């Protein structure tokens, strides 16, 4: 069979890392850092997501075709978020907030 069997040890290590990052994000959230609270929280969440994607969801061992789907998933999400934000962040540039 060409199915890549991920050894259990990998799963345990990923699980340990996920628990560690959960504890870390909780710890940092209780320290007032201003804007950096968001930066740290999102960085840790993205790191945890990558661990789940690559190992639990086997993307690391999957075909190029799966990589294309995963990459386009993020690309579409970014279009949704960023293009909408260009609208909202530019509202009010032309005087009173008539359209918000």
């Amino acid at each position, binding site marked *: *069979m*060409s*199915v890549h*069997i*991920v050894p*259990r040890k990998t*799963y*345990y290590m*990923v*699980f340990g890392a*996920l*628990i560690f990052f*959960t504890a870390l*994000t*909780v710890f940092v*959230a*209780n*320290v*007032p850092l201003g804007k950096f*609270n968001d930066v740290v*929280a*999102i960085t*840790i*969440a993205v790191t*945890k*997501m990558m661990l*789940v*994607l690559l*190992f*639990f*969801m086997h993307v690391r061992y*999957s*075909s190029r*075709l*799966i990589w294309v*789907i*995963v990459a*386009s*998933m993020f690309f*579409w*999400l970014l279009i*949704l*978020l960023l293009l*909408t*934000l260009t609208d*909202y*962040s530019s509202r009010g540039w032309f005087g009173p907030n008539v359209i918000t």
Partner: protein
Amino acid sequence: MATNAEAIEHGHAPESAHAALAHHFDNLEQQREAGTLGMWVFIAQEVMFFGGLFLAYLIYRMRYPEAFMAASNHLNWKIGAFNTTVLITSSLTMALAVWATQAGRAPKVQVALMLATVLLGFTFLGVKAYEYHEKYVDGLVPIAGWFNPNHEILSHIPANVSLGQYQMFFWLYFAMTGLHALHMIVGVLIITPIIYWAWRGRYSPEYHAPVENFGLYWHFVDIIWIFLFPLLYLLGAHFKP
């Protein structure tokens, strides 16, 4: 592993191939790859589905940062952290369940790992129900008639924050965690027949696509929570009213 083409070549009916092999695939490997691809396209669609709510959160959060931080303070991050751990553990048991089928472990091992996943899923939903009830008692459910924060909560609302902005945070909280919880309930419904088939010994190193694809779904739901936890619970953790 017999394929349909090989079976026909040797004068057998295509049925002599693996029982789980559909007639329009050459072999189980091709069938598995097609199924996994379909599952990923479904997950990409789910990302867009949740993406709309994350977008709404982002826009209101940027517009009313103080209101969101103060409102987030009413969520208990300790309970949230507990549930995060429960969900991550359920992802581990599900990953191990997939491993058990791939490695050809006994049906009872596969079933035990999947039952552990379901049990952790119910634990998560039970805690969620407790939290929802707590919000109901505090009058923080953002539905007309139910949104009636008590005096203690009202006294903690910053002066420049309106009650409507507060309500919007809780609307997003209930919409996002509610949709997430709905996905977990659907997950439990989907895994039930898979557990039954695992018990009947249907899954082997050759054929385990349903377990694998359900695992992808379950891990995806885990990823959504990985983002909901900091955005909703941890946002106001250090906020002192």
